[in-house]
């Protein structure tokens, strides 16, 4: 029925809707929640993910196995399902009092649950990046360090860590953006972030196209700004001779 669009009234665009109160305010509070989830979720992902990645390279079988188990579990369950598990299932398995606290007592239950979910899932990916970065330190370099008489701790401190850190930072930035964008799934457990606010505007005003366009622009702007800020950093961190000169 595409011919219909020509002779009917069609969709009535009204861009002023997204600049009208309360809708502008909804988008603004949505943006705040999205940013909070992105930053806090990624912070948690680093907190768990970095030790996890190091554990993956551990010579202890047990430690590396446990770390691998964590990564496998969190990477192989869809994030949306994890969100539901954290929100609906976990509080019901916990002891009643603790479950009630998770549901009602803790500050901002939905937001906190979303951050925990994004953080624990993000940690699995961060861990893999950290492991990969550590593994890229050439074996010859480590052998040379041994030959020069450095201890294992010294090798880690002066050779592996500096190189791996420079290697991992660019990939971590894309992980941050992933957590930031994945936070839109938090709408399914009742966090009114940007995507949820767009849907709310759609339901109130029936001007959904404008609202979702606003959300798109907000997400894209933040991602592009982040990349603009970190690309120069990435250049400066490059180790000449050890990495390809083009990223």
């Amino acid at each position, binding site marked *: 029925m595409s011919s219909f669009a020509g*002779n*009917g*009234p069609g969709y009535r665009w009204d861009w002023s809707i997204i600049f009208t109160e309360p809708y502008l305010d909804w988008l603004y509070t949505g943006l705040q929640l999205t940013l909070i989830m992105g930053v806090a979720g990624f912070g948690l992902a680093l907190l768990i993910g970095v030790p996890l990645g190091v554990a993956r390279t551990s010579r202890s079988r047990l430690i590396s196995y446990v770390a691998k188990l964590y990564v496998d579990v969190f990477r192989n369950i869809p994030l949306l399902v994890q969100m539901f598990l954290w929100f609906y299932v976990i509080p019901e398995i916990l002891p009643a009092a603790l479950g009630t606290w998770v549901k*009602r007592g803790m500050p901002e239950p939905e937001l906190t649950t979303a951050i925990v979910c994004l953080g624990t899932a993000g940690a699995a990916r961060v861990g893999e990046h950290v492991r990969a970065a550590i593994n890229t330190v050439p074996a010859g370099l480590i052998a040379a360090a041994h030959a020069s008489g450095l201890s294992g701790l010294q090798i880690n401190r002066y050779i592996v860590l500096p190189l791996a850190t420079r290697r991992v930072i660019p990939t971590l930035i894309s992980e941050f953006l992933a957590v930031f964008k994945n936070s839109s799934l938090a709408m399914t457990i009742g966090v009114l972030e940007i995507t949820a606010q767009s849907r709310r505007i759609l339901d109130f005003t029936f*001007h959904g196209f404008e609202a979702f366009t606003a959300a798109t622009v907000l997400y894209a702007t933040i991602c592009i700004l982040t990349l603009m800020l970190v690309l120069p950093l990435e250049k400066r961190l490059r180790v000449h001779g050890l990495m390809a000169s083009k990223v």
Partner: protein
Amino acid sequence: MRSKKWFAALAGVTLAFSSVAADLGPTLSKIRDSGVMTIGYNETSIPFSFTGNGGNAEGYAVDLCRKVADRVKSELGLEKLQVRYVPATSQTRIPLLTNGTIDIECSSTTETLTRNRQVDFSFNHYITGTKCMARKDSNVLKVTDLDGKTIALVQGSTTERHLDRIAKDRNVNNLRVLNIKSFTEGLIAVETGRADTFCTDETLIRGLHAKSRKKDDIIVMDEMLSVEPYALMVRRDDSEFRLLVNKTLAAEFRDRGYEGIFNKWLAPLGFELDERTRLVYELTAKPE
């Protein structure tokens, strides 16, 4: 002289005919040209609009739309009219209606003035209001008891804006809102104690309460918090089609009576044909 008269008469007829055609408006012209009318329905809005056991569209509002299709057929003088049914959710109904995929939406959509900037509504075919269900152990019996409680509300629903206003009017200050997406989630939130109360259209609250596993621990509050007038939704600025829809509703409630359709769909679920509902039917049953 005689041929001139003939010619004038012919011209008059042609003119009259073409003016009729021009007055059909976009939707009716499209239906006449294609021989197809498409009805948009919601698959889960029981008993107003849902997918029945046979996989077909059914419900109170769908029945009304079938009457609209009958009337379209007879007013356009079509020999055959194919009626198609397309599922539409609250997210897709606007694009589907405005881009011409569906010609009318038949569900439990509430008419509001803000929404009216994007679409047009028919006369009201039913009226309901917001009611709340609450956990017995939360001691919530009326709105003023809600101070300091957690209330589950469906994101973007009309209930949300009513509750904002009511809370302010009655000095309920510490209200924590749990945002949910579907009606079932509201029931789960109350059952699991995540929320003390869940408010939405009475039509839905009753159905949900009836199927709750913890029915005995949950009460439905008496207080009616708002007015939700339901209407069929059509494209904006198409007066001809909207008039036809309104004529259908008026004729249905006026000539055939509203008890029939009420008893078929709503009475079995415990709805009462109260004074307010009768009034809405009588307002819609305008004279020809």
